[in-house]
């Protein structure tokens, strides 16, 4: 499916696709409707969410990080518009020490549903959810909590990455592509890399893939150092890569700048691939033309879905996987640069969704 911003949402909303639930919770309900209810209601009706209060605990950076937190905020905004819920937001301090306190404050404030944005909240959610059994929790990017009132909202980043990997391979003329990871060593970014490599190799088994990580956890500077991303990307372009995918958070801006400056100075156009949100829409117009596509991780969908489920009294605990099938991940078409290969990409998508191809979560070797 093509997935410009609006498209995907509607697809998810109307398609009634399901998010698979693993058995982690031991709950009886194996499946969950991950789609937003068709409650794009008319103004006259009373909003279904009135009087319902939802708290959101952002991770370090909070709103305006142009990434993960913003994406979660977008889901919340949409829920406000659609359902008229009340919301309260808090964000973690710079050292990330007060995550649990924030959650607790939100719970004490009487919010019925709490959404924690980021795996680092796992410990806090576990503790607070135990103390507030009547409050429901959603936690993004974590599938480790086994409590009846917690939903772990995880994404199949590797599946989405496979699609953009394929796109990179299809668009590459040189047979060399690149991947820039922000922070290595905690497993998440390696998932992106694995999928990307897998997808690219589906198209061209001989493709050469250059990989660099900007820092290693627990040094998370790699998510915030665009200058290093720039140099890394220029290195890869110099080495002959003509498409580079980044999973480096705020450092990604450096990749786009590198694509722009390399294209301009070498007069051969090279591409960048964005991540998490449709970065074509969030970056400055000056670099838009270099963004081939973005691997979209629908944090907003997961948030919106969780709220929807909650309002429908469908409190699904356990792990909700937002995968390709659920349109929890995908790729963007903004800019129209991949219009010519949509068919091939969709074919690959189909193979993954049907299980014909299984995308690895760890890079080979």
């Amino acid at each position, binding site marked *: 499916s093509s997935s410009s911003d609006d498209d995907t949402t509607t697809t998810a909303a109307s398609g009634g696709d399901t998010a698979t639930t693993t058995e982690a919770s031991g709950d009886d309900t194996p499946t969950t409707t991950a789609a937003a209810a068709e409650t794009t209601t008319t103004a006259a009706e009373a909003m279904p969410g009135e009087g319902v209060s939802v708290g959101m605990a952002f991770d370090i950076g909070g709103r305006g990080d142009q990434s993960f937190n913003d994406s979660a905020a977008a889901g919340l905004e949409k829920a406000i518009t659609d359902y008229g819920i009340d919301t309260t937001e808090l964000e973690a301090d*710079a050292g990330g020490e007060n995550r649990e306190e924030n959650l607790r404050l939100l719970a004490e404030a009487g919010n019925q549903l709490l959404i924690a944005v980021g795996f680092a909240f796992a410990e806090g959610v576990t503790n607070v959810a135990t103390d507030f059994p009547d409050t429901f929790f959603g936690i993004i990017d974590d599938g480790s909590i086994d409590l009846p009132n917690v939903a772990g909202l995880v994404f199949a980043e590797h599946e989405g990455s496979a699609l953009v990997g394929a796109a990179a391979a299809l668009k590459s003329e040189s047979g060399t592509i690149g991947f820039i990871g922000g922070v290595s060593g905690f497993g998440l970014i390696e998932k992106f890399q694995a999928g990307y490599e897998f997808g690219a190799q589906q198209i061209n088994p001989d493709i050469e893939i250059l990989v660099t990580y900007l820092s290693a956890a627990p040094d998370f500077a790699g998510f915030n150092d*665009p200058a*290093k991303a720039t140099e890394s990307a220029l*290195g890869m372009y110099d080495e002959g890569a003509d498409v580079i995918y980044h999973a480096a958070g705020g450092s990604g*801006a*450096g990749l786009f*700048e590198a694509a722009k400056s390399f294209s301009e100075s070498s007069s051969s156009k090279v591409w960048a691939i964005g991540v998490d949100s449709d970065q074509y829409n969030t970056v400055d117009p*000056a670099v838009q033309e270099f963004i081939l596509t973005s691997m979209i991780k629908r944090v907003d969908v997961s948030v919106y879905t969780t709220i929807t489920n909650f309002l429908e009294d469908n409190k699904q605990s356990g792990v909700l996987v937002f995968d390709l099938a659920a349109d929890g991940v995908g790729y963007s078409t903004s800019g129209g640069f991949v219009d010519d290969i949509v068919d091939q990409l969709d074919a690959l998508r189909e193979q993954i969704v049907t299980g014909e191809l299984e995308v690895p979560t760890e890079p080979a070797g």
Partner: protein
Amino acid sequence: MTADLHEPMVEAKNGSFKWSRWGRFLAIFVVAMIALSAIQEVAGTTQLTSSGTWGAALRLTVPILLAGLGGLYSERAGVVNIGLEGMMIAGTWFGAWAGWQYGPWWGVVLGVVGGAGFGLIHAIATVTFGVDQIVSGVAINLLAAGAMRFLSVVTYTIGTGGGATQSPRIQDFIQTFDVPLLSPFLQSIEDKSWFFFSDIAGILGGFTTTVSWLTVIGLLAVPVSSWLLWRTAWGLRLRSVGENPWAAESLGVPVLRMKYWGVLISGGLAGLGGAYLVLVQAGIYREGQTGGRGFIGLGALIFGNWIPAGVLAGAGLFGYADALRLRQATAVHALLLLIAVGLVAFALWKVYKKSYGSAGSMAVFAILFFLWWLTTDEVPTEVVTATPYIATLLVLSLASQRLRMPAADGIPYRKGESH
């Protein structure tokens, strides 16, 4: 150590232009280049000398260099400045904000002003109030980070494309240029893949292709600083304040004012380094963007023995190692071989100097590095990221006896109270 202990360039000795010195440099350079080329052949990479690597090394060097030079002015005036990181952070924020609002050159100006602003705070605390300099530096690092976050929250509100942790994109970068004729010529030589010659062309190419004007300014800061500090009356006075402020005071040098100059310039240069990050490389302010470069600059300063050219050497080393690993993580592996060969050369020199003990330990290290190179295919990211820090520690522990910091560096000075 790359730099002499005492900058002896006070004057060109009675016109006898130092041919011998240049000749020696040239010889060392040629030998080193041949070794480098050979190592590349063995290790099977071209990244060690490619123009791309050297261009990147240059860009990665400049912010560290500017921070280091910032430290230089401050410490030459007798004020230790570990607040460089905070001043650099201020430089990134103000550079981005002004760059976004008024264009990149205003970004440069305000970046400098922002850094100097925190320099001013440091100066007031340490020079006027005689507060412990390390303490003030630590406080400034805390304060700058908090204040910039606050400013972001207040200015880069939703809708600008920025937020609490980042600015909108800066529309224009500082302009870049290729040196006409030279750049394409060097490029063509580099493309030929000739042993040695292409390597030299690659290195020179890095300095002549897509060079930002701000890079030029950053590099010019080195000779300009040497000139200012060692040739002008102002520089002599500034240095005198770091060596013996009581003597300076007794000769009518306005000690406090000179210290203020030193610390303000220090902040300004660190701020410029921050602005460089934003306006040349990243195009955006991002919280945490400096990533410890201020501290590495401090390392470069010590590594460089408080001399501009030495600071450049230190910053260059860090920049180069970083460039290599960022551009081609695998190329770092070749660096192990380079280090082994370098250590062997150093050991031989020590043997020549009849210092067998250190020659022996160098040889042992050389063998270890060689074995490491031989038995592995790549260097773990964690090790690579730690390289500049390990290098600084190594240099300090091998050469700290030969380093000479300004005699009154870090010692609080109060007017009229001699020691």
